[in-house]
């Protein structure tokens, strides 16, 4: 029989980690950015955290930081660990964990595209979703999508000249004034 794994002992091996057990089967780790790859390697090797569920990026613009969250699941200890780390927003460069987790390639590419964080060692940092996009990374907090639309697109002219001419002759698709409109009131 396999020996049960005690996460507390495991995590005591590394200093500077804050552990919080928030709910059942959920654990939050706050890790300094330099130690995160080592923590992931320890978790994968010693506690069976084989499954990288996702990597999320949160833009804390007031603190000028990006927060990267690595969600890992282990069937051996039935726990989801969310490892949080913070990196500086400028220049926004971090290490890839592709050699530990293959799925990281997709999430790192996604974060690079949406937040502009560059992951050193990631196999593919090319554009994926925003192929013909030349603006700033759109998921950053300072990106105002409404202002971008107003700057870059023209409003459609819904009443061109030819339609106005038709309307003057009594046709067209425009909403007519009340007295010309068919209504139940007029029927009565």
């Amino acid at each position: 029989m396999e020996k049960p794994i005690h996460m507390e002992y495991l995590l005591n091996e590394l200093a500077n980690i804050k552990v919080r057990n928030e709910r059942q089967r959920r654990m939050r780790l706050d890790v300094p950015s330099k130690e995160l790859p080592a923590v992931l390697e320890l978790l994968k090797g010693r506690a069976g955290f084989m499954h990288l569920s996702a990597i999320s990026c949160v833009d804390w613009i007031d603190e000028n930081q990006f927060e990267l969250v690595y969600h890992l699941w282990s069937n051996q200890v039935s726990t989801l660990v969310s490892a949080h780390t913070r990196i500086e927003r400028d220049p926004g460069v971090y290490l890839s964990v592709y050699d530990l987790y293959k799925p990281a390639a997709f999430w790192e590419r996604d974060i690079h595209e949406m937040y502009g964080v560059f992951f050193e060692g990631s196999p593919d940092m090319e554009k994926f979703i925003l192929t013909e996009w030349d603006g700033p990374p759109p998921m950053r907090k300072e990106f105002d999508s409404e202002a971008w639309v107003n700057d870059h697109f023209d409003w459609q002219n819904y009443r061109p000249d030819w339609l106005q001419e038709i309307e003057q002759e009594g046709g067209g698709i425009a909403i007519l004034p009340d007295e010309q409109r068919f209504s139940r009131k007029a029927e009565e």
Partner: protein
Amino acid sequence: MRAENYEPKQHPPSHEYELNFGPNHPGIEGNYALKVKLHGDTVVSARADAGYLHRGFEKLMEQRLWIQNIALVPRICVPDPSPMEVAYSMAVEQLCGLDVPERAQWLRVMQLEMSRITAHLFYFGGHAATTGMYNPMFWGVADRDLVLDLFEELTGGRVYCIYNMPGGVRRDIPEGFLDRLSRLLDYLESRLPEYDNLFFTNHVLINRAKGTGQMSQHQALEWAVTGPNLRATGLQCDVRRDDPYLVYDELEFDIPVEQGGDALARTLVRRSELQQSIRILRQIIQRLPSIKGPIRAPIPNPLAWNVPAGEAYVRLESSKGELGWYVVSNGGQKPYRVHVRGPSSMHAVQVLENLAKGSRLEDVAQIMFSLDACPPEVDR
């Protein structure tokens, strides 16, 4: 041209050529594309190309009130929208510390399992069509419509139910609903032998699907494959059992597995799952009348609702695999950050690219459909 300005172009070897497979192609699910490099009709390499369906849900959600997002989230995955709204509601409840009444939890499980049936019926049709059989498509869509009728009766919406809200569900079941659901389950079960004759034991399917897009258990784990696609490689792994949510720990159901790891195994796993969903729904029909109580917890004024600061990661098992929702609040009236982990983010990109390599061109569509890849989950 002067010699120093001449840059020779890198041409591919003359026996290889490139083919744009999609975004408008009958063998592609949704608006998605694969750039396929071919040698004869053997795929040398494939590269996924998304973005034709990008609607920016994660950005949109940051600009809307917590309650408004409920109407937005089901749109992320068209064939199986219900898990999205349940996951979002569960995340908001975790942030607020809301306790969902028991009856609402049972109703949610009922909705999730009905949605799983619709998604699987749709899937059979899609997979059959890529092997050249169109009848299962018509049958699957027609039978799915009967479940959608019940959705309409229960929620008012056929595909996008928008039935959940943080705290519970919007309505209780109408009178006689459980009887009609029970009759529908009987009907679906009586249809399964006919599906077997037409589709699951048909040599057209078996000859085409056996050995196509095969992956080993080791590969599946390495590529973070989840859900029925992982269970088709022989691993009994299911979020409903490993990390139970709602009332799944009170329900009896099996986790079907197949050993092949190929397109055929993936279809057969889903066929068994359909039976398990029917089994779960039968238990719900039995238990639901005895569970009394409210269907939602009281929530503050939803138009001026400051959700406490914090974060929540919710996992649940959608019809395609593990669905993850990461929701962050900074105490404001709108979400600070929402991140959706659709299972197809893995299946439609890395897994598909790897499985397509070495297969033949006519099997690419089948591999994609057999993985149940859902492009809207990739594009979000």
